[in-house]
């Protein structure tokens, strides 16, 4: 196990092992999404209050979860890069930012589309929505800062600090529906005791959540591979790879 992590620190080894994982991740992701969509769109019953509009949940909730999860991964990887100077952690951190931003965007947009028929408004400045919007700006800030600094190792250090500071927003988003009176509904899955959701709705939701996690793993590895190549452009193994792809 220790040897595995040691080897993973080697960019060349990472590049090859990630390349081998990618098709498997893609395959499992597609199977899970098909299963989740079938369960969510066909098997799950219509909601007695929200009609069929609630089916937006199967993408809205997993992408909102991912927006938080990816942020924590990004800040965590950034911290590891800062403390132990592990290059691969820096690469994972910076590769996560655009993916996290797109999931945050997706959560906001699908939430807005869901809000229109249910609340009668595309957008309200309630605590949940506002803190999620701030999360999007944090992601964009991380991306802008990284691309603004010429030296990539300095850039990685600066963005890691920004990402770590931004972590304060994560519990705010999570508890916003409890701390403040929000229009956004409270938690139905993670609250203590039995989740107040029909099992036929919960199962596709969880399948989609796992599928989105796999999707993140898939695309973060794809991005990280490109980032590794870019950083190692002068290394012998990259030169050989370019000559014989």
């Amino acid at each position: 196990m220790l040897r595995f992590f040691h080897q993973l620190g080697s960019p060349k080894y990472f590049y090859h092992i990630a390349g081998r994982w990618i098709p498997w991740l893609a395959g499992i992701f597609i199977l899970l999404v098909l299963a989740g969509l079938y369960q969510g769109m066909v098997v799950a019953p219509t909601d007695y209050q929200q009609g069929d509009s609630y089916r937006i949940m199967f993408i809205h909730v997993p992408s909102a979860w991912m927006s938080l999860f990816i942020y924590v991964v990004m800040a965590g990887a950034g911290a590891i890069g800062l403390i132990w100077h592990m290059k691969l952690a820096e690469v994972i951190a910076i590769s996560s930012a655009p993916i996290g931003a797109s999931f945050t965007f997706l959560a906001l947009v699908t939430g807005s589309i869901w809000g229109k028929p249910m609340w009668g408004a595309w957008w309200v400045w309630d605590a949940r929505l506002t803190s999620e919007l701030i999360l999007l700006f944090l992601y964009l800030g991380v991306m802008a800062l990284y691309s603004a600094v010429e030296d990539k190792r300095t850039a990685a250090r600066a963005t890691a600090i920004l990402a770590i500071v931004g972590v304060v927003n994560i519990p705010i988003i999570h508890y916003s529906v409890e701390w403040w009176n929000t229009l956004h509904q409270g938690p139905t899955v993670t609250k203590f005791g039995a989740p107040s959701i029909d099992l036929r709705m919960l199962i596709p939701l969880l399948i989609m959540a796992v599928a989105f996690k796999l999707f993140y793993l898939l695309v973060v590895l794809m991005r990280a591979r490109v980032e590794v190549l870019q950083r190692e452009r002068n290394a012998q193994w990259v030169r050989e790879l370019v000559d014989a792809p």
Partner: protein
Amino acid sequence: MSLQEFFHMGGYAVYVWSSYAIALVILVANVVAPILQRRKLFSQLARRQRRERRES
């Protein structure tokens, strides 16, 4: 449930299907972006290596 009923989504078709369409676009973009970046980087590096070989 008929196919028509399925696409109708109890009257919420516009909201539900536009959400799923946007999700599809965003997921596809996330897959395509690194593929394009990788291709661009490879052609860049290949050009650099050809140039170096000519010079040496």
